[in-house]
């Protein structure tokens, strides 16, 4: 696997090594996730939208191809169906195990979801407490191992701990999805350096999942080398979700292009862009 960092010009101990430029000869940078080809690198959650109609407009504006859904008890009083919207837009429904605190719960939920949707893809979410919604690493890894053995394509929502990310990858997960900050917090990417480390060591796609607040967060995630971004609240709870969805689409595309273009390094001092030769003497 080609190195993601260009280490030829800086010492290995440097805090930040610019990512090597990436040849993106395929238009729109299509990518592979879970054995399938995708064009959009933005995955959108369906949670938080004030109406199905607003959700539909926003999903369209986002250009997304994959949307997450949750499983809950049937409510006879509910109007409309999220599945209807997803099918109408021709999107791929990725069930998640939101609300699960134990590996056992998450595994059962994933199995239910497989039945309900006829897909063995699952976004695996096993949280430790309801205030931070941070992942419970122990339960998460256990659930991931069980689900991979049961034939699932597992996309785990994880912390920004590179060791845990590596364990999840070794367990056979199809991607690793480190959080930027707590779900719904809009706090952006709290530890970009850990995200970079995860990107550098991963052989599976890295998808920044949770805590995105606005477009610049999404662009940063892509500039850090992530292969994709997963967000929900940043769009669904924005004052104008449809407009924000379009902004996120642009941000992910811009961040991906910037990362592929090979940025200049951060320097302490200036580096003139205008040559000194030919300066007229005018005093």
């Amino acid at each position, binding site marked *: 696997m080609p190195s993601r960092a260009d280490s030829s010009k800086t010492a290995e101990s440097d805090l930040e090594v610019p990512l090597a430029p990436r040849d993106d000869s395929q238009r729109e940078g299509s990518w592979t996730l879970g054995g399938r080809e995708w064009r959009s690198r933005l995955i959108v959650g369906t949670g938080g939208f004030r109406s199905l109609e607003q959700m539909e407009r926003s999903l369209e504006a986002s250009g997304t191809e994959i949307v997450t*859904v949750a499983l809950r008890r049937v409510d006879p009083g509910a109007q409309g169906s999220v*599945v209807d919207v997803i099918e109408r837009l021709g999107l791929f429904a990725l069930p998640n195990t939101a609300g699960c605190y134990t590996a056992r719960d998450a595994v059962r939920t994933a199995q*239910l979801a497989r039945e309900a949707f006829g897909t063995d893809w699952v976004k695996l979410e096993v949280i430790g407490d309801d205030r931070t919604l941070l992942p419970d690493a122990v339960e998460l890894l256990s659930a991931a191992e069980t689900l991979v053995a049961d034939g699932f394509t597992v996309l785990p929502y994880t912390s920004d701990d590179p060791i845990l990310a590596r364990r999840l990858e070794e367990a056979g997960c199809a991607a690793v999805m480190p959080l930027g900050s707590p779900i719904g917090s809009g706090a952006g990417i709290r530890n970009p350096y850990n995200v970079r480390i995860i990107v550098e060591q991963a052989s599976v796609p890295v998808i920044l999942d949770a805590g995105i607040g606005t477009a610049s967060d999404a662009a940063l995630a892509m500039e850090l080398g992530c292969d994709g971004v997963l967000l929900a609240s940043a769009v669904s709870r924005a004052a104008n979700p449809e407009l924000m969805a379009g902004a996120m689409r642009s941000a992910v595309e811009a961040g991906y292009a910037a990362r592929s273009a090979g940025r200049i390094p951060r320097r302490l001092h200036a580096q003139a862009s205008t040559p000194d030769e030919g300066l007229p003497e005018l005093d």
Partner: protein
Amino acid sequence: MNVILNGESRELTDGATAEDAVAAAGASDAERGVAVAVEGEVVPRSEWAERVLSEGETVEVVHAVQGG
């Protein structure tokens, strides 16, 4: 016969199946995105009509909602 359907005690006819529980929960078996678990075990859709329920069993009928 009493079962615990989606957290509530419900009276179903004797010999009721998972398929009946789906209807009792307010979903139709034609609906996409519906799944059933009895005593925590998933019942595949193809077996809904055969899985007969017993007194006191816990049945969960779930479907896709906005989330995640």
